[in-house]
Every structure is written in structure tokens, then in C-alpha cells.
């Protein structure tokens, strides 16, 4: 059930009606049943596996709160969560080796027989489960003693598929003290849903579908300026895809009076990478900060001086490599994470002697330069996120030709043969230049971002005049309708995690 589908809309409406009609004490059960149904539609087998993992976390949480054998229970919890992640998510990595071993022992297996399907949302839940156990261990929160509450925390359907990664304490409080949904909350929630749908359906889906099929497999075939344009397209596709998804589910959750963490805050306007990771996948980067970066920094700082290279390099690097591994157990994801770690290390070094100036107080030229550099380096890092390592090197190597003026001049010459991707070559002059369609979609994305940058609080939308709201809504609805006629929906890029 795609969250931009009519089926999902119908499901939400039905759940809303039930939720708002039943007595307060029943509301969370309505959400739980709806979440169970939502998950079962994808796969009832996965629902069982997921629920068992949730139950393990719940039971271990209770044990942890008893103060006996805490270390044992904590490590058991970590082991169960990480093992389940490895077993399900990284099956592609180890199943071929298992198959080879079995075949050596003369045990034949079919390709399907050794297939293990990743329960949807497991990657996100594992992080939430572990943070729950860490928090109990550190006595930050009491253990949840009522399994339906915890089950709902695990399965809550708006955040189930792709986050945000909520903290158990904050979430449980909300479901046990339902907020009243008033007209203002309704307005904000619907605005989020519309904005999210525009980002996902009007911007992300077309950008994703127009990417040539071989741009991330055979980049050397592309002229450097066209390759750069497609990289830009990918960067905006993945951003709008995920940010759009988060907006929609925050809006949906708002209709139930439950507020979910903001996950994106105009990341491409960040002026350095510290700021970037405060704006991109915020719930996940906060998780990494609280459970990996800070504990590791604390341990190292107690042993070594702040300027010691270990202190400077290890915490950001380790944190970002873990981030890469969470996305995928393969070398190119480690490179992606490592790159972001490296960016943060490099940024950190001048701060040991230069006076620190907050980004907003820096001279305008520094802010612009910082923003452009951060944006450019973030785009480059998307290559290993998307492509394997050999292709990544080839891609970057091809991009360096942007500085080779003779090659660039030849590539944009009207009579040049230019490869356009997906087995197409240019027949008309206009295709020698970067595809105009990319910019037709990036510009609205930037306009939305500019508005959001100036008005970080979505609630400011309530202050618009009715006509302004009507124009925005009409244009959004028309754009959504027109794009829905153009192509089938693409799945969320992050939904595979």
C-alpha cells in the first residue's frame, strides 16, 4: 500500500473515523489494530517476525529495569537486534556463501528456497529498539510494562516503513495522553500532507523515472556536463522522495494528535557538514549522535586531549561509517559514510585555532561559499551511495572532465555525438545540453526549500491569507493530478532499508 495511493488515503480515513469516535482509553488499540492490518497487507509472515523482535525488546526492557545482570540483558538485546538486522537485511551478502557451502556438501537448494525477505521497517525499528534498551539501561526512561503500548511503538503505521526514528519515552507519552486535534492542527497536518505529496509525486517520482538506466552503471559513456546534471537530478530525487514521505506521514500522524519528529530541514542549504547532518534525516543523525558519537567521544576525551587526532577523527568517522553500514553492508556504503565522516573531520580542524562564528553570523560570501561547497560535496557523495565502487571511481573520474575545456566544448557542439543514456544518442541540438526537465523540477524544489528556510515552523502557514492558501492548494492539486497521468508511482528510495 503506497502512501500516495488512494487505498492508503481510504485506510487513513477509516482509521481516523474509528479513532476519533471511540472512548479515549480505546484509541491506542484502534491505532494498534490499524497498524497490524497495515503491516499484514505487506506480509503476515514478516508481521510475525517483526512482532517477535518487538516482544524480545519488550521483555529485555523489563529485565533491564530490574537492575540484575544488566550487562547481560543489554548485550543480549543488542545481539538480538543486530542479528535480526544481519539475518534479514544482509541476506544478499551471505546467502550465496551459504548456498555454496551447501552445494559443496551435495545439498541442492533452489534460488527461492534460500530467499529471506526483509520485514519492512525492520532497519528503522532495530534502531528504535536499541535506543529503547540503552535508555532503560541509563535510567533515562522507565521500562514499558504493557506490551500493547510497546507493540504500537514498534508498529505505528505512519512511521513504520521509513521512520522517523522515534524515542520510546516521547512516543508512549503521546499515545497515552491523546492530543485534541483542533482546526489549527488539522490545517497544519493537511498542509504537510499536501506539501509531502507534491515533493514525492510531482518532484521525486519524475526525477527518479527520468534518470537514464545506465547513468550509475556506465557513467563513462556520458559527457561530463550531462553526468553532472543527472547527479543533481538524483540528489534532488532522493531528497524530495524522503522529505516528501516524512511530510506525509507527519501530517497523517498529526490527524491522530500524535506529533512525529521533523526529519528534514532544508539540508541542501547547509553551510557546512555539521549543519548538513542537523538538517538531513534528523531522527537518524540524532540517534547516531546520542548513541555512538557522544559515548565514543566521551570515552576518548577522558583518555586523550581534545586536539589528539584520535579525538578528532574517530568519533565522526566511526559514526558516519556506522550510518553507511546501516544503509547497506557493502563497500560503497562504507565509502559514502566514510566520506561524510571525512568532511566533518576536515571541517573540524580549523576550529582548533580559529574563532568560531555561527553560520548565520559569518560574512555573506562565506555563507554562500560554504553552502555551495557543502552542496557540491554532498552531491559527490551520493555517487557511492547509489553505485558500486568501480562505478563510483569511473563516475568521479568522468566528472573531472568538467574542467577539461576542449572536451566540454566538443561535447556541447551541435554536431557532436552525445550519449543521452538508456541506449539513446542525441539527434537534435537541444539534447547536447543538460536535460531541461531536470531544472523544471529542481526549481520548484528550491522554491519550496527557500520558503521553508525562511519559515522553519510549518505552522506559519496558518497565517497566510485564505486566497494564498487557495492558490497554493489549487496549484498543488493540479500538479499532482497532471503528474499522476504521466507515469506510475515509483517506490520510496528509502523504503528498502
Amino acid at each position, binding site marked *: 500500500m503506497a502512501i500516495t495511493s488512494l487505498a492508503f488515503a481510504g485506510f487513513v480515513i477509516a482509521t481516523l473515523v474509528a*479513532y*476519533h*469516535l471511540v*472512548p*479515549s482509553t480505546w*484509541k491506542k488499540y484502534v491505532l494498534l489494530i490499524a497498524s497490524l492490518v497495515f503491516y499484514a497487507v505487506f506480509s503476515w509472515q514478516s508481521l510475525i517476525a517483526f512482532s517477535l523482535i518487538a516482544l524480545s525488546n519488550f521483555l529485555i526492557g523489563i529485565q533491564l529495569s530490574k537492575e540484575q545482570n544488566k550487562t547481560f540483558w543489554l548485550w543480549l538485546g543488542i545481539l538480538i537486534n543486530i542479528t535480526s538486522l544481519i539475518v534479514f537485511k544482509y541476506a544478499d551478502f551471505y546467502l550465496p556463501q551459504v548456498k555454496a557451502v551447501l552445494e559443496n556438501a551435495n545439498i541442492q537448494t533452489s534460488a527461492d528456497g534460500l530467499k529471506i525477505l526483509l520485514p519492512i521497517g525492520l532497519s528503522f525499528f532495530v534502531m528504535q529498539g536499541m535506543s529503547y534498551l540503552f535508555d532503560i539501561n541509563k535510567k533515562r526512561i522507565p521500562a514499558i510494562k504493557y506490551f500493547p503500548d510497546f507493540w504500537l511503538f514498534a508498529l505505528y503505521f505512519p512511521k513504520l516503513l521509513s521512520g522517523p526514528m522515534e524515542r520510546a519515552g516521547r512516543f508512549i507519552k503521546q499515545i497515552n495522553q*491523546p*492530543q*485534541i*486535534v*483542533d*482546526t489549527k492542527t*488539522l490545517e497544519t497536518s493537511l498542509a504537510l500532507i499536501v506539501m509531502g505529496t507534491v515533493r514525492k509525486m510531482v518532484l521525486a*517520482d*519524475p526525477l527518479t*523515472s*527520468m*534518470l*537514464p*538506466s545506465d547513468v550509475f552503471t556506465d557513467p563513462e559513456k556520458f559527457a561530463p556536463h550531462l553526468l553532472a546534471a543527472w547527479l543533481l537530478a538524483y540528489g534532488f530525487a532522493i531528497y524530495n522522495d524522503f522529505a516528501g514521505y516524512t511530510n506525509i506521514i507527519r501530517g497523517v500522524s498529526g490527524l491522530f*494528535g500524535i506529533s512525529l519528529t521533523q526529519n528534514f530541514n532544508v539540508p541542501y542549504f547547509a553551510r557546512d557538514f555539521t549543519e548538513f547532518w542537523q538538517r538531513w534525516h534528523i531522527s537518524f543523525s540524532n540517534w547516531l549522535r546520542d548513541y555512538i558519537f557522544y559515548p565514543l567521544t566521551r570515552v576518548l576525551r577522558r583518555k586523550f586531549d581534545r586536539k589528539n587526532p584520535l579525538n578528532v577523527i574517530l568519533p565522526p568517522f566511526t559514526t558516519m561509517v556506522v550510518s553507511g553500514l546501516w544503509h547497506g553492508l557493502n563497500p560503497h556504503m562504507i565509502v559514502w559514510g566514510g566520506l561524510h565522516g571525512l568532511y566533518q573531520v576536515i571541517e573540524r580542524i580549523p576550529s582548533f585555532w580559529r574563532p568560531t562564528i555561527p553560520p548565520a553570523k559569518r560574512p555573506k560570501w562565506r555563507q554562500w561559499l560554504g553552502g555551495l561547497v557543502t552542496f557540491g560535496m554532498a552531491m559527490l557523495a551520493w555517487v557511492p551511495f547509489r553505485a558500486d565502487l568501480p562505478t563510483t571511481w569511473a563516475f568521479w573520474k568522468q566528472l573531472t572532465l568538467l574542467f577539461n575545456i576542449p572536451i566540454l566544448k566538443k561535447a556541447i557542439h551541435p554536431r557532436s555525438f552525445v550519449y*543521452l*543514456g*538508456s*541506449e*539513446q544518442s*542525441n*539527434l*537534435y541540438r537541444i*539534447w547536447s545540453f543538460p*536535460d531541461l*526537465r531536470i531544472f523544471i523540477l529542481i526549481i520548484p524544489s528550491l522554491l519550496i526549500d527557500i520558503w521553508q528556510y525562511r519559515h522553519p515552523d510549518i505552522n506559519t502557514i496558518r497565517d497566510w491569507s*485564505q*486566497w494564498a*492558501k*487557495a*492558490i497554493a*492548494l*489549487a*496549484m498543488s*492539486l*493540479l500538479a499532482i493530478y*497532471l*503528474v499522476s*497521468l*504521466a*507515469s506510475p508511482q515509483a517506490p520510496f528510495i528509502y523504503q528498502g532499508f
Partner: protein
Amino acid sequence: MLKLSTKSLEISLTGKLVLKTLFVLIVLIGLLEGVARLPWPTDRIPAPSMGTYYIIDIELSRLADYVQENDGVDVIIFGSSLAHSGLDPEIIENVFQQGTGQNLRVFNCGVTGMSLLPATSFVKIITQSYNPTLIIHVTEMRDYSSLTTGGLIHSVANDPWFHYKLGKFSPKGWIIDHSMAMQRYLSFRFWVRDDFPAWYSLLQKRLVDITPWGFEADRRVADDLNASPDPNNEKDKYMLDAYEDYQVAPERVESLKDVLSQPDKKVVIVEMPVHSAALQYFGDPSEDYQEYITTIEQTVQDYGGKFISTANLNIPNIGYSNKFHLNQDGAPLFSEFLAQELVHLYNTGWYQP
């Protein structure tokens, strides 16, 4: 004012925002409609689309222009790509004029992939809209096999505009039929695809190649027509499998009867002069051909139409682009032949424009 109040819900809505949004939508749609109806250059911009297939769109656009320029149309030719590149109406008009002294307005509405089954719907729609006095359908053996399932069969069967024009109302069908803005947008509906550049280049080429009479010459010349079908070749294998056990399917004959049943119209069914080597795809060529030709002739006769056989039409090998299609050398021969047949029908009084 709508008020909803429960323990967890306290909302009051006036509906003003909805009304204002509707108003803005109407204004926006009006603006788009105005822009869409501007005189865009027809050789550069895709033809307005009904959302099915771009060749249909070009044909409909050409037909509308033809009718406007010639104040109507007398003869419309239907069929698949065999018709689309096999009959040049300009030649037919000239030969008919020379043979009868009478002007004849002929348009070729053949569409790639439009075998008999989807053609029945298309014939009905076009005939209702443009009121020709004579319908010509170019037919061949594959039209009558139930295993001919490719081409436009599925897209036409599920198309909202086709359904709307045949009397099955849907909001989408209505919008497509009435809104130029929608038609203009649909003509670009592939803009999100990765192969859009190739598609757009191909479209521009077809826009130039398809004449104002709806005809498009095929410039290819067949290599070796008499070579036997190759079972290792995907296309050959598909046809060998499909027609090995050829039978004329009753439901396809019903489609022929639908075409023949256009009220107050004369209908001519003309046999496509495929190359003799095309019969190599059929399990029992001679028997299969006899079954086909006998059934068609009888059906056409029963329904008051005219069947034109091309058994005596000799087209040299150089006039074929493959075993089924005529090229730019073969099409004029077929066109002249058909024109002479029409002259004969005119002279015998069977058909008057």
C-alpha cells in the same frame, strides 16, 4: 459551518477555503485551456493526444485538418501499419479523378498495431465524427486469428477516451475529449521517462513523414524475402508459434461484421497484398489461406459490402519492406490498383461519393 466535536476532535470548517480553491482551479484550468488552444506549430509540437498511442493522435490531427481544408471527407481507409504505409490517398484521389472526372476526398487512417479487433472501435468513432460515405478496411490473415494479441488490442480495450466515444461515460474520458489542455498535456505524457529524448525525436520524425493525407511511406527495402522464417529469431518464432495451427476465429469474424455494419455507409474490405513468402508462417499455407479468404468473401457479401481481392496484383520484391509491408515503391502500385477498383465501383453505381 461544519463542526466536528468528539473527545479528541474539535474542528470547525466554513468551507470558504474549498470554494476559493475551486475558484482558483477553474481560473488555472481556463488559463491552461487558453494557452493550449493557441496555434502551435504542428510540425514541431506533438499532436494533441487522446492518451492511447501517438500515431492515433497524429492521424486524428491530420484528419481534422484535412476535413477542415477539404470541407469534409468521402473515403477513410482503416487498418494497421499495412494500410498506414500501403495506401497513398493522394494517388487514389488523382487516379479516381482521371478515371471518373469526379473529385474524391480520401484519407488514410491506418495506425500501426491496429489490427481488426481494436479497429472496430476506431472505425465506429471516426465514422460517427466525420461521416464518410465509404469505409475501406485493409485486411490480412492474422486479423482473424485469436492468437493475434499484440499491438493496440489491450490499450484500446482499456482506454477511457475510446470508451467515452463509444458511449461509456467516464469523467476522465469526458475531460480528454473536451479539454485541449488535457490533450496537449497527454501528448507530452512521456516526459518523465528516461527514453523521452528518443521518443520525442521519433515523434518529430513521424510528424514530418506522415503526409496531410495520413499516409507515411516506408523507406526500407526487404533483404531476402524468400528466406525461410528463423525459429531462433524472436519475431519469427512468435509468428510461427501463433500461426502454426491457424484457424479463423468466430469472434474475429464478429469484428468484421461490426465494421461492415456501419449505418448508411458503404464498406469495402480489401485484401492486403502481402508477399507470398508471408504464408511460410502458417502451418498449412494453402488451406489456411482458403479458409480465410472464403470466410471473408462470404461475410462481406452477406453484409452488403464489397470484397476486393489482390490475388492478381503483382508487386515486385523491390516494393516490399518485409514480407507483409509495402514500401515507397510498392505503395503506389497498391494505391493505383485500389483506385481503379473504386472507379469500377463508381461506374457500376455501387458507390457514389
